């Protein structure tokens, strides 16, 4: 019987081999490499030269841009997740009701999800253009005077302009998630609350919201991960400029590695980013799951 079990078990593990190999080569070896490289002095193609301990981290922490980039990453992530989730929640609540044209409304709101962030960001580059862009065109039309704001070039406007694009690209996925959560709530529950005299706000806060919470938690975690990691929006629209004012951890890692060829700091920042993200996801899931499960 035991031998049979071992045979059966090894048969099971055999099915996991392809996935394990792929994850190993595509993700785990590179990740472990980054962690090791962060303790070494490396050349421009990432070859380890000598062990330097935490030297790379010290250099990184003394870099005045480090704190600025961390702060910008925090603003970038939090503002986008909060605003996009609120908008998506309202949108999902409306889209969950029956009304003529609902399918088309859903399609238009969901559609950008399947479009590369690269393509949409390129389009926003045209739309934000100082002279030929439609944002300034629209403002010129409304205000009846020539508006030539350099949205992506201005120190005050660049980051909000990027965050706006990010919100725009986060809404579709968040709406889909919340809507699917709403659809799994039995309609009778809401009707029962209605009969008991609950208005739309009470129905939402006492019936819908508690049931929706697990989905909101998952959507938030996934959004934070994606936004924290998002690269193309910033890279295509501003490349982190003007004067590093729109750099986040991801774009700054890329610059450190491939523009300044400072592989040590790049590896150290990768590790910092990884640790921040993992501890956030861990804490968030633990804190919220206390009430959720």
């Amino acid at each position: 019987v035991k031998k049979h079990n071992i045979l059966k078990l090894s048969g099971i593990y055999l099915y996991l081999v392809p996935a394990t190999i792929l994850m190993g080569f595509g993700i785990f070896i590179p990740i472990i490499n980054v962690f090791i490289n962060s303790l070494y002095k490396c050349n421009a193609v990432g070859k380890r030269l000598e062990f330097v301990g935490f030297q790379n981290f010290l250099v990184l922490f003394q870099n005045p841009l480090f704190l600025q980039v961390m702060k910008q990453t925090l603003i970038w992530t939090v503002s986008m997740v909060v605003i996009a989730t609120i908008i998506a929640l309202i949108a999902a609540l409306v889209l969950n009701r029956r009304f003529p044209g609902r399918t088309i409304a859903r399609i238009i709101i969901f559609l950008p999800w399947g479009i590369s962030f690269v393509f949409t960001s390129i389009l926003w580059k045209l739309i934000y253009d100082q002279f030929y862009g439609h944002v300034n065109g629209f403002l010129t039309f409304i205000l009846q005077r020539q508006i030539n704001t350099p949205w992506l070039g201005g120190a005050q406007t660049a980051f909000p302009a990027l965050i706006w694009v990010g919100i725009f690209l986060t809404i579709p996925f968040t709406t889909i998630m919340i809507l699917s959560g709403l659809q799994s709530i039995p309609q009778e529950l809401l009707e029962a609350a209605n009969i008991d005299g609950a208005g739309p706000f009470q129905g939402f806060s006492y019936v819908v919201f508690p049931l929706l919470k697990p989905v909101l938690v998952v959507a938030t975690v996934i959004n934070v991960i994606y936004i924290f990691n998002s690269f193309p929006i910033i890279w295509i629209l501003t490349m982190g400029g003007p004067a590093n004012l729109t750099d986040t951890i991801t774009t700054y890692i890329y610059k450190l590695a491939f523009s300044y060829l400072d592989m040590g700091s790049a590896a150290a920042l990768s590790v910092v980013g990884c640790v921040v993200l993992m501890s956030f996801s861990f804490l968030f899931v633990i804190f919220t799951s206390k009430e959720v499960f």
Partner: protein
Amino acid sequence: MRSISDSIFKTSGFIFIIVLIAIMFFPYFIALITSFKTLPEIYTSPPTWIPKEFHFENYTEMFGALPIGKSLFNSLIIAIGSSCLALLCALPAGYVLSRFTFPGRRLFMYVILMIIMFSPVVIIISLFGLMNKYRLLDTFIALIIPNAALTLSFCIWMSIAYFSSIPESLEEAAMIDGCSRFSALVRVILPISLPGIAAIIVFSFVRAWNEFLMANTLLSSHAKFPATVAFYFFVGYRGTLWHYMCGSILVAAIPTAFLFLFIQKWLVSGLTMGAVK
């Protein structure tokens, strides 16, 4: 009183959705009108909202003016390669994870979940070093492997969700009739899983089609650039051929957007499964 507040509530919801739709559609609307304009009309300030003349021939001319066909073809190869590789690895794993409990199962599930957190940026530096070491830089293989690996966790989640919905009695019946478990999987389970398999293929196809960072880093010859990187280079300079760019972005983006729309249900069921369980 109640009905008045209800209808105010409903109307404001409607207005909200209409505004949101206008905003969501805006960039693609701009792409559409710009794709029909002439270059001089695009470079006028303030910009026009409706083209003076509709130049439909832009859509054929753009393929001659810029290597758009070639870049779309490169995207296609990378995306097909990535989705096939991801599928081959995800299906067997998803199958045993949905059917058996075995030592290490929980660990494996946690590892899959953790992978979702890793961003390509964190691993891109060492991927560059690794690919350089194995002389794979500037090849499609260098993109296909990490692309497939990064979509693998979602693919496994989705296949677990799908296989769990298929009753186990089906392959038990096949095994009583003399099939081995593997041939029961291939002959009985996979054919009825086709919708789920299609969803997985579409998901990893679109993810690879839309990927930018790795292609931008690991490829160097322009002839191998997929659409995302090629288009990024086309708009890098003043005097961008925006009429061709907008047209080719629509051509590259709309099919994948609709593909994603079709598999939306499966994706979400895979994602929320973790939340409900």
